[in-house]
């Protein structure tokens, strides 16, 4: 007992130092986890962008698809549909989503000589799961979606189950430069530009750090959008 009393100051200092070390370690682990999650979500966004961009750049007009049917197995008859849907809006993502987007195109370039006309379709599917995201001063729970890519009706890839927003906008020839909009139905024959945007989110760090704070950063969210000029439609 005498020993502890003699070294009370030292023991207190060591305790404080150890406590701070533990807190720093926990905070460091939290930060590393956030970085990894951010890297994962950004990779998902880039992957999905590449798929979408490639498909859209090769998008054919309905007439081109119909004309090419004589030497292909395509039976769609030209189906360029941009379907908007506002029934899936919720929470902070109160923008109109695109429920599905469908268009004819050709098979990949390696098959170019005898490439078939195929129908590519993107479906936005509700996974039934939700995610809780931090907002400026609280949190909000929103549904998670998946973007399915279908070729001639058969599943051919898509995104992970972490899409929170998906929207395809179109712009017709000579439309006002700021008039990109979601349409509901067949695309216009004068379609010239297609813009897509989506947002993905991954469950973040849900444990509290040593000082009792949960992570409120938005490093587990990534959004991307770009506009594609349809050279085939000129």
């Amino acid at each position, binding site marked *: 007992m005498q020993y502890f009393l003699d070294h009370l100051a030292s023991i207190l200092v060591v305790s404080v130092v150890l406590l701070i070390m533990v807190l720093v370690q926990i905070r460091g682990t939290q930060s590393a986890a956030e*970085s990894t999650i951010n890297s994962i979500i950004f990779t998902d966004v880039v992957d999905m962008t590449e798929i979408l961009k490639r498909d859209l750049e090769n998008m054919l007009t309905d007439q081109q698809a119909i004309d090419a049917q004589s030497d292909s197995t395509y039976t769609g008859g030209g189906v360029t549909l941009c379907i908007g849907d506002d029934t899936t809006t919720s929470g*902070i993502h109160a923008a109109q989503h695109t429920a599905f987007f469908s268009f004819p195109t050709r098979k990949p370039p390696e098959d170019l000589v005898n490439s078939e006309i195929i129908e590519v379709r993107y479906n936005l599917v509700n996974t039934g799961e939700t995610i809780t995201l931090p907002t400026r001063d609280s949190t909000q729970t929103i549904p998670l979606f998946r973007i399915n890519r279908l070729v001639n009706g058969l599943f051919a890839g898509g995104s992970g189950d972490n899409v929170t927003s998906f929207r395809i906008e179109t712009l017709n020839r000579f439309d006002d430069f700021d008039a990109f909009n979601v349409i509901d139905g067949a695309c216009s024959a004068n379609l010239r530009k297609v813009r897509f*945007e989506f947002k993905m989110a991954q469950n973040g760090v849900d444990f509290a750090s040593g000082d009792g704070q949960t992570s409120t950063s938005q490093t587990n969210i990534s959004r991307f*959008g770009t506009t594609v000029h349809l050279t085939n439609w000129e």
Partner: protein
Amino acid sequence: MQETLLALGALMIIMLIAVNQQRSTIHIHEQVYVREISQARDDFAVRLLEGISNEMSFDEKTMALTDIPTNISSLSDILGPDPGETADSTFDDIDDFEAYRDTFMHVISADTFFFDVTFNVSYIDDDNTTTTSKTFAKEISALIAPLQDFGKYGNTLTGVFSKTKVIYEDF
């Protein structure tokens, strides 16, 4: 006395470690946010220039022609808005955007960003360099700066991003 000094030294070291750790975390968050604003800015830039090239005619003086002009003298002598054209809603050809500056709102996945945009339009020659001589190709550049305050890292974005698009008379 010696113990006290050692204790103070230990506390100093641990405080430095804690502060550096916090700084590192903040740095990571800032970098992520800067990347997000960069992606939104890139999206906005492409959308804006693709939209302009889609809507606007190549030149005020040739927009009424039914055929693509072959005589260079048929183009406007001066790049810039024509009389009565004061805002983008009244512009009708590419070079009306010369020296035009405005604030634009961009919404991506229900998140809103604001950008200050300054346009520059010039003729370009066969070597893709700007020229004062009239040609059948114009380059429109948009100098884009985010209006939100992104602290130290936001400054690196301000005024340095320029997106260009070349537009030809027969586009």
